[in-house]
């Protein structure tokens, strides 16, 4: 390192080189140099998740606008099955819990329990997706698909977008489990952290869907 002393006054305080009246050249304002790889990866992934939430919020806004635009077709009250939605919610919340358990096992570097927790997470996610697919296919078979009304368009798009995220997450999860099986923890520790963040965010979005789409939709 090229060590250059900071210019200081006799009292050891840094001087203001341009006489601009600033003497606050103290440390503690992000002056510690580049962050660690772990921090950079997790931070970047958080920024991505925030952008994803913005994308969802556009679909939420569209649904809020179009929730009553049923074009004389069926409303949410006639279409939604609260018990199925409750089971879906249960599956997803439980999978978030087991995903958290996998993080605990990863921190203890326990390969078996990590894999076991990830497997349960994936199975619960699959169950959720299966229930959602059943709901969608039933509605489309009854002629109330996304082309029936603007309300149903926004419903299928918003809930389907969340489902697509769950599906991509499962693909990612499967790939990581295969990699864990072949190579052990090695280089994918940070990816496991990212997956945990991703899965929990999907849960948060589901809570919003549960409230905005199903609970409020039931009341319409």
């Amino acid at each position, binding site marked *: *390192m*090229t*060590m*250059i002393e*900071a*210019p200081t006054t006799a009292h050891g305080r*840094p001087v203001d*080189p*341009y006489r*601009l009246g600033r003497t606050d*050249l103290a*440390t503690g*304002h*992000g*002056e*510690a*140099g*580049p*962050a660690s790889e772990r*921090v*950079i990866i997790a*931070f*970047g992934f958080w*920024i*991505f998740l*925030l*952008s*994803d939430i*913005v*994308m969802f919020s*556009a*679909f939420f*806004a*569209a649904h809020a*606008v*179009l929730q009553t*635009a*049923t*074009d004389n077709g069926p409303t949410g009250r006639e279409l939604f099955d609260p018990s199925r939605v409750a089971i879906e919610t249960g599956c997803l919340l439980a999978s978030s819990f087991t995903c958290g358990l996998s993080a605990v096992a990863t921190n203890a570097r326990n390969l078996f329990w990590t894999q076991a927790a990830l497997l349960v997470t994936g199975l619960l996610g699959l169950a959720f997706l299966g229930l959602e697919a059943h709901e969608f296919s039933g509605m489309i078979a009854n002629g109330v698909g*996304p*082309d*029936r*009304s*603007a*309300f*149903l*368009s*926004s419903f*299928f*798009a918003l809930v389907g977008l969340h489902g697509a995220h769950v599906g991509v997450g499962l*693909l990612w999860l499967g*790939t*990581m489990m295969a*990699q864990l099986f072949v190579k052990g923890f090695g*280089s*994918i520790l940070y*990816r496991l952290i990212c997956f945990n963040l991703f899965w929990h965010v999907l849960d948060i979005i589901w809570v919003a869907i549960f409230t905005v789409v199903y609970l409020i939709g039931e009341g319409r």
Partner: protein
Amino acid sequence: MKFLGNLSWDAIPWNSPLPLIAGGGVIAICIAIAAWIVLAGHLPYLWKEWITSVDHKRIGVMYILLGLVMTLRGFADAILMRTHQAYAYRADGYLPPEHFDQIFTSHGTIMIFFGAMPLMIGLMNFVIPLQLGVRDVAFPTWNSTSLWLTAAGALLVNISLVVGVFSRAGWLPYPPLSELEFSPDVGVDYYLWALLISGVGTLVTGINFVTTILKMRAPGMGYLRMSMYCWTALASNLLIVAAFPILTATLVMLTLDRYLGFHFFTAAGGGNMMMFINLIWAWGHPEVYILVLPAFGIFSEIISTFSNKPLFGYRSMVIATLGICIISFLVWLHHFFTMGAGGTVNAAFGIATSVIAVVTGVKVFNWLFTMYGGRIHYKTPMLWALGFLVTFVIGGMTGVLLAVPPADFLLHNSLFLVAHFHNTIIGGVVFGAFAGIAYWFPKAFGFRLHEGWGVAAFWFTIAAFYAVFIPLYMVGLLGMPRRMQHYDMEMWRPFILAAMVGIFLFGVALICQVIQLVVSIRQRERLRDETGDPWSGRSLEWATPSPPPIFNFAVQPTVYGEEPYWELKRRAIASQQNEGRYEAIKLPRNNATGFVTGFFASVIGFAMVWKIWWLAILGLVAAYAVFVWYAWRDIPEEKISAEEVARIDRAHRKSRAEWLARHSEKGNMA
């Protein structure tokens, strides 16, 4: 179901010679270049050192190349429109309506998404890590992926020139015109897939740079010691992260409408067209600040460097930048005052719009006060900055005029509006890109651009700008709407003819730019920058040789003040000449992930446009395979040994010492 979906020989416009000849010419040039590369044996070098590169400097250069080529393409559209309208007085002109509509749509789409965006992102790529004093961006492979996704979108737009048609619905495809019912051909689909793909690339860029700027800075570089360009880039990338997902969501909704019969924006089924206009401008207004904020940063650097003074009012500049960042999200409705929001809502958005002008005014005064009392050097970058100051202020004032709803009711969709946004985008973003290219060119390639031809290009550009757009302002005030294929009003004619003369002046300016580049390359030995600091700069990128070594800094710099390099020079140039303790440097390994992703994205986009479902599925499976292949790699980094670092750094120190010996110290360090 047909094997190639809707694709057939009818997609080639056999009976319209213009696109056929243009497309054929472009294809011939591409084949010629490709043949030359392969036959001359440049392909391995190009593949290893550029196409698969994850080095932010090379990615930046490739972005700028893409931006320049696509700006040229958009400029060709501009020439067509201006000459066509000059003919189309009480006549049909030479472009039939369905072709004219494609021209203005592709002009806007290309200039914003594939001209201005790559230019701005390219400059950020090249400069930001150097100014932060670090080795690369946070996610180098993603950076390469961003580039190639953007290129994939640009490719799709260009394919539409020859295979099928492009959108005729304007650069923002308002429904119901853009819906399947009224635009049944593939034009809007090309637009949608090109923008969906390149939009993902831009979003990843935003994530990358926010993370880089917030989490990777040289030791000692606190937030308030970053250069102004880093601040504006941060604000711009925050806007990308917050706004581009809205664009993606909106375009996905329109895609669902067109492909699967959804009813988001249709006239039937309860759809809501105004929702599209609200959503698209919730992205669209921040977008103009995504473009212009980095340009503000470039001008801040240039004005301070060529005035030999620190930037005036650094903190007010930071506050103004972040103010614009936030307020830009609160003004979107001013794009459609006429569409029935009501007086109260219009007033609120009109006031918010005027407030942005106040914050921007803070910046303008700061630039003026930076120059006040400074020793100003009128080099090409500084000329662009001065041209920007004058031109942009005019654009800002017409913007404030348009922000007044009653005035907007008269000027909405007129050529006055067209002149206004060209005034701010050419005067702000394009001048900023040219200024930045002239300013950082010696850093990127090791030699300066020829000054005389640069000055000529500047004067022709600014003359051309006023020659085109002052008449358009006037004819807009006379009531001429935008996008007219033909017209009968005699009083409009002289202004349209004047604007046509202006567009030819732009052509002259363009020729000057090309000559400048050729002359500079031929005279590169005379123009060589041996010191790494040709302009007596003030930020860290000038502390490293030109062109910088792959690792940017042999020894990671430590920062003690706001203008780190000026500080280094001021204290003792001698201390810079002390060798540091060299250490081995780890760098990410070049890899083809980005290029292959871009390739499959192009395939998927093309397949979706023509509804070749099997090809789209194949592309998705291939994309997943690339993901697994990338995830499975074991050694993502390579090491550069301490000896190698020392060797490269000592060579630079030697050439710098020789330069210093040849020149008086006073001349250099003034």
